[in-house]
């Protein structure tokens, strides 16, 4: 079984990411609705539980956090309920990007300690890649 030391951050090109995104869109938004109903895709099609958390952003600086094994997305409640729908859509789309592109990596993290360890061991440029790709 792979360990945290084996984590290899993929370096995907723009073209490769676009191809993956297009394939995902066909599955998650078969009617090609515009704007893409991202929360519907995550909650209703993929079966993730979206959990709005008051003050997540102000306390931690994070807009959202993903618990992939439990299929849960914790999102700052103000962002989730914001009238500015672009922001909540962007936040959820970003988490969806992580689910599609980085699930294998996240499934290696078994505990909070692993998560902290991962952040400590993972080079800054690798973290940047993960963020940028999503």
């Amino acid at each position, binding site marked *: 079984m792979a360990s945290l030391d084996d984590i290899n951050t993929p370096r995907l090109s723009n073209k490769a990411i676009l191809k993956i995104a297009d394939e995902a869109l066909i599955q998650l938004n078969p009617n090609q609705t515009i704007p893409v*109903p991202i*929360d*519907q895709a995550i*909650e*209703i099609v993929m079966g993730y*539980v*979206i*959990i*709005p*958390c*008051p*003050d*997540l952003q102000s*306390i*931690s*600086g*994070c*807009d*959202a*956090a*993903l*618990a*992939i*094994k*439990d299929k*849960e997305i*914790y999102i700052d*409640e103000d962002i*989730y*309920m914001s009238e500015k729908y672009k922001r*909540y859509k962007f936040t959820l789309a970003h988490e969806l990007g*992580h689910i599609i592109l980085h699930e294998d990596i*996240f499934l290696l*993290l*078994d*505990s*909070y300690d*692993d*998560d*902290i360890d991962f*952040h*400590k061991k993972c080079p800054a440029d690798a*973290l*940047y890649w*993960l*963020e940028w790709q*999503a």
Partner: protein
Amino acid sequence: MDTFGGFFKKLRIKQGLTLRHFCLENQLDASNISKLERDVLPPPKGGTLDRYALALGLKPGDDDFYTFHDLAATANRTMPSYLTEEEIEEKVPVFFRALRSDENKDELMKKIKGVIKKAWRP
């Protein structure tokens, strides 16, 4: 057998509504409804329960209307779901926000964990 929260969520999804859409449409608090659907909060009683039934499209006389109220009554006689510390530990939230150079990762994780813990407490 459905729990009250599970049945609530099933009815909402049946309407094709996401949590956000359902709460915006009915002017409800999303974190409370989320807790209700995860059985973290016990069902309300009286007028609030009726308001939720209406929002979920239930009409007196429908089977689902009675199931909804029966499940609420049953849930109010049992303890709400309460995740143990161990179960919360297993949630492992992943985040990749760029950290400030002076920021302590353990401290940040503790903060996120605290917020998540609140989401699983009544």
